[in-house]
């Protein structure tokens, strides 16, 4: 279409668009590249000195940072397991029982955390915990992470369930399987890629969250700790932490996508 009339204008437009795409990529990835490169820099300033693991060593020697990392891992592990179980159950209820009281409302409400701004969600949770008179602690962080992760897990699992022939469960029942056996032997194995994909997504979101955690925290998690550090100025140590977190996130997201695609 663009070459039919061969006008110079369309060709120039083409080139501009291509250039624009490159510019967008550069805009996205250049800062990341800079961050990774400087995390391996010997100098504390943004001038290249020599390749070094100094900041990584310093990072692992920092007790506060290690405590934050440990808290992050605990929160992520517990909230992932619980939100995956609850999110899967919600997905099953919504996909398998075509009608139950309040289904539409439940359906809409379940996706609220995906839509509303993090700050709103965070404020809501904070108000909720305070009104209950709960001490803010690692438990409140876990509860908050569960709250937003359920939505994401159930979206992923539902996509998988929607493609599952309901006749399979009927066939299992017809072949003498009770409800639980039919779920264990037929439904669960077939939606497993979705469940695992949802779990990895939950893990990533939990490990990355700053805003909500910042509101409801007791102890720092890794992201809120880094956020705190930045207020006192950027150090290459932050570059090292960020590089590690980035790597972890990329691995988890790719894993999640791969699982969701698998048949």
């Amino acid at each position: 279409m663009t070459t039919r009339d061969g006008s110079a204008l369309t060709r120039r437009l083409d080139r501009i668009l291509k250039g624009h795409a490159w510019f967008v990529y550069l805009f996205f990835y250049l800062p990341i590249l800079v961050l990774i490169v400087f995390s391996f820099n010997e100098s504390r300033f943004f001038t290249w000195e020599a390749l070094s693991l100094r900041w990584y060593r310093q990072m692992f020697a920092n007790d506060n940072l290690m405590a934050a990392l440990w808290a992050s891992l605990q929160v992520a592990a517990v909230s992932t397991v619980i939100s995956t179980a609850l999110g899967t159950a919600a997905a099953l209820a919504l996909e398998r029982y075509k009608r139950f009281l309040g289904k539409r409302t439940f359906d809409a409400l379940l996706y609220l955390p995906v839509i509303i701004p993090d700050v709103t969600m965070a404020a809501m949770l904070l108000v909720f915990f305070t009104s209950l008179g709960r001490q803010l602690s690692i438990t409140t962080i876990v509860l908050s992470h569960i709250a937003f992760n359920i939505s994401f897990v159930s979206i992923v699992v539902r996509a998988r369930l929607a493609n599952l022939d309901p006749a399979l469960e009927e066939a299992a029942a017809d072949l003498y399987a009770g409800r639980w056996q039919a779920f264990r032997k037929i439904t669960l194995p077939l939606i497993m890629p979705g469940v695992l994909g949802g779990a990895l997504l939950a893990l990533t979101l939990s490990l990355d969250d700053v805003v909500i955690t910042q509101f409801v925290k007791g102890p720092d998690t890794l992201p809120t700790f880094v956020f705190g550090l930045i207020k006192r100025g950027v150090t290459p140590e932050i570059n090292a932490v960020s590089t590690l977190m980035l790597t972890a996130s990329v691995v988890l997201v790719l894993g999640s996508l791969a699982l969701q695609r698998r048949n």
Partner: protein
Amino acid sequence: MTTAAVGIKGVTKRFGDVVAVDHIDLEIADGEFFSLLGPSGCGKTTTLRMIAGLEYPTEGSITIHGEEMGLRPPNKRPVNTVFQSYALFPHMTVTGNVAFGLQMQKISEDETRRRVGEAIDLVRLSGMENRRPGMLSGGQQQRVALARALVNRPEVLLLDEPLGALDLKLRQAMQLELKEIQREVGITFVYVTHDQEEALTMSDRIAVMNEGQLLQVAPSEEIYERPNTRFVAEFIGETNLISGTVVEPGIVKLADGRLVKARTHSGAGTAVTLNLRPEKIDLHHTEESVPEHFNKLSGTIVRRLYFGDSLFYEVDFGHSIVDAREENRPGRERFAEGAPIIAAFHPDSAEALTE
């Protein structure tokens, strides 16, 4: 008196405002090959699902060998189903699929292995034991579905258009095979189809359904030869429906005033429809060659179609056009379009229907 394998009494099933099954009564005998036949949406699947326990009747009761099923769930019923889409478990091998029912019933491993082997032999799938359903052809998947159900030795096997997804050749081969397997295992088959030919060739008895109701329940031959309503007559095979009035028992007057001898079941004056199958009509050049007690109607050939195994004629009787079919056999006379002919048929071939 023996109790029926399946007893359906006054069963109605409603989905909201839709009446899927409308007050049906049915008894299916032990060891019978029984077909539910009817157009799309007439309630065949719903009836089958109620026997399986996948759906519960809104009203009425279902018994299996005299035992009331009530709200018993499917896994507690002595029946198994071959689903239309097969519903094979995609993550299990052929063996895994076939063994599933036995494992759920906690049958010992030895016996399970033996029975699964037998079932796979029965449906001739030996050598495919370790394949997944995705690696099987449609016909092979169909056999797995059959083996998976049969291996449990159900009292009743329910089949929902099990051959619907297969092409014509394979379907015909599978029809014979299914029938053979049914004779071999002696299990009651309840077979759903909307293919009338399939129902006729395979079944001991057929129930013709329409709009949730049972119109006629009878052996295959009777369904074809003696349909009780216009709907059944038209649904099963080709037929001519000619309207007339009963003059006296055994005599019907057609719209143009001609009288024909027919099987009547109602008194003088009732409006009836004669059901006359095309192959029951013999065409002749002159009256002389027609046997004495046959009906003889003169008409003109308006169209001739060559079908290979038969010739198909449209005959104009002045008031109505009737289809006739003659087997293509050596020595048979052929009739040209436009030729005047005598159409002859035995009085027993013309059934006077009132509904």
